[in-house]
């Protein structure tokens, strides 16, 4: 499908327009796919050239998952459970090991594409206990909800919900005031689930310009133009320029499923303290499928562990938008996608990984 959203003419005109507005602004977005577009097509330097710095912030689910949460999964794998997870997660270190290294020493860790894969495996292997790691923002949370709501899922499946929600994290960042936050590009895929309303308070209460944007180069450049315009006029409004996918109300069926299965919980994000109401805990009604309850005794100690960040890794600051990957002395010097030190280099949605992958050779 060709949307002509890579039209160079329009892109050039938009960049010229941003330049002529003459603002020096800092924009945050929270999505690996946005970062991928920005780096892969060399948009980031073009924007910098016209006065717009843009950073990813905490928009990488694998990156913001804490060492303690990873250690809990490792503990269960060591105790003979089958851990089913999306790809990158298995390469992030907990206390010492990763899920991948536990697998090489005999643990059963499997990479799945969809929560539904776990159901199939569990039906075929009834003698094993399966734990699905639910990771991701509002985009993947409804897929975990589907698993919880399905009465036919086998007894030997339970779910560890590490899901998190975006708006409370943005509120935290706006309140913390650590970075000059002139505008937010809101994640298109999260937004197609949650719609427009959950972001509105950030414009109403903090006067932050916000644009819900898609993933083509033009989506992002036009988003920055809108932010620059609003900034120049002192406005802070929420605009949706991804209407081809994001409806104002989001996906109501998916939201209802989330409401039925999850409750907001206070949870820590890597690089951040506990962010109130930013996690999705499995609601009481589904507690028999909640791994944290099913294996409460086994996990008791893990939840109290204090797990330090990998030595020298500044991923936490990258996630808070305080520094860019290049500011980390280990970037490309010891830390690379094949030899990652921190989760921002492990995950394909992490800023460090994306920059390393495309940075030297944008298409």
């Amino acid at each position, binding site marked *: 499908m060709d949307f002509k959203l890579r039209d160079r003419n329009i892109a050039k005109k938009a960049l010229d327009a941003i330049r002529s507005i003459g603002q020096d602004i800092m924009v945050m977005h929270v999505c*690996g796919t946005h970062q991928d577009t920005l780096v892969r097509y060399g948009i980031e330097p073009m924007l910098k050239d016209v006065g717009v710095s843009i950073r990813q912030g905490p928009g990488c689910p694998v990156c913001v998952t804490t060492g303690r949460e990873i250690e809990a999964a490792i503990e269960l794998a060591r105790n003979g459970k089958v851990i089913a997870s999306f790809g990158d997660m298995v390469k992030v270190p907990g206390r010492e090991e990763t899920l991948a290294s536990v697998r090489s020493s005999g643990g059963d860790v499997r990479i799945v*594409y969809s929560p539904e894969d776990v159901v199939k495996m569990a039906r075929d292997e009834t003698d094993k206990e399966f734990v699905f790691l639910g990771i991701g923002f509002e985009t993947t949370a409804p897929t975990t909800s589907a698993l919880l709501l399905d009465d036919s899922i086998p007894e030997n499946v339970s779910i560890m919900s590490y899901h998190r929600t975006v708006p409370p994290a943005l509120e935290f960042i706006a309140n913390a005031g650590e970075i000059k936050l002139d505008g937010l590009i809101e994640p298109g895929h999260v937004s197609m689930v949650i719609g427009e309303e959950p972001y509105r308070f950030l414009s109403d209460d903090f006067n932050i310009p916000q644009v819900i944007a898609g993933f083509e180069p033009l989506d992002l450049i036009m988003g920055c133009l809108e932010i620059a315009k609003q900034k120049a006029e002192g406005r802070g409004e929420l605009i949706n320029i991804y209407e081809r996918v994001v409806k104002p109300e989001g996906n109501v069926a998916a939201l209802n499923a989330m409401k039925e299965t999850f409750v907001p919980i206070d949870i820590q994000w890597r690089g951040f303290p506990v962010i109130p109401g930013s996690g999705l805990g499995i609601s009481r009604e589904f507690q028999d499928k909640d791994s944290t309850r099913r294996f409460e005794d086994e996990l008791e100690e893990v939840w109290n562990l204090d797990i330090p960040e990998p030595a020298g890794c500044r991923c936490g600051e990258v996630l808070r938008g305080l520094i860019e990957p290049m500011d980390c002395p280990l970037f490309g010097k010891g830390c690379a996608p094949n030899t990652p030190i921190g989760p921002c280099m492990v995950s394909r949605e992490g800023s460090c990984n994306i920059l390393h992958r495309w940075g030297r050779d944008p298409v």
Partner: protein
Amino acid sequence: MVGDPDMCLAIPGQVVELIDDKKAMVDYGGTRREANTIYVKPKLGDWVVVHAGFALQIMDEEDAKETLKLWDEALEAFDLHQRE
């Protein structure tokens, strides 16, 4: 890319077969994969955004063309305004 178990890096695919009321076959530029359709009800030929095996939204192609036209016009106007 399609087999890549990433969470957020979704690409749109086209519905080429409606299997039942909960499943559709989706084509991603030649690679086909079943998608769960409990959260959206696509028609044959619709473009859908799929995450972790679930279709989560239908893409509106007309809207996309409209957006592009609006942007083009807006920038044209901006351009004129700047020159004045």
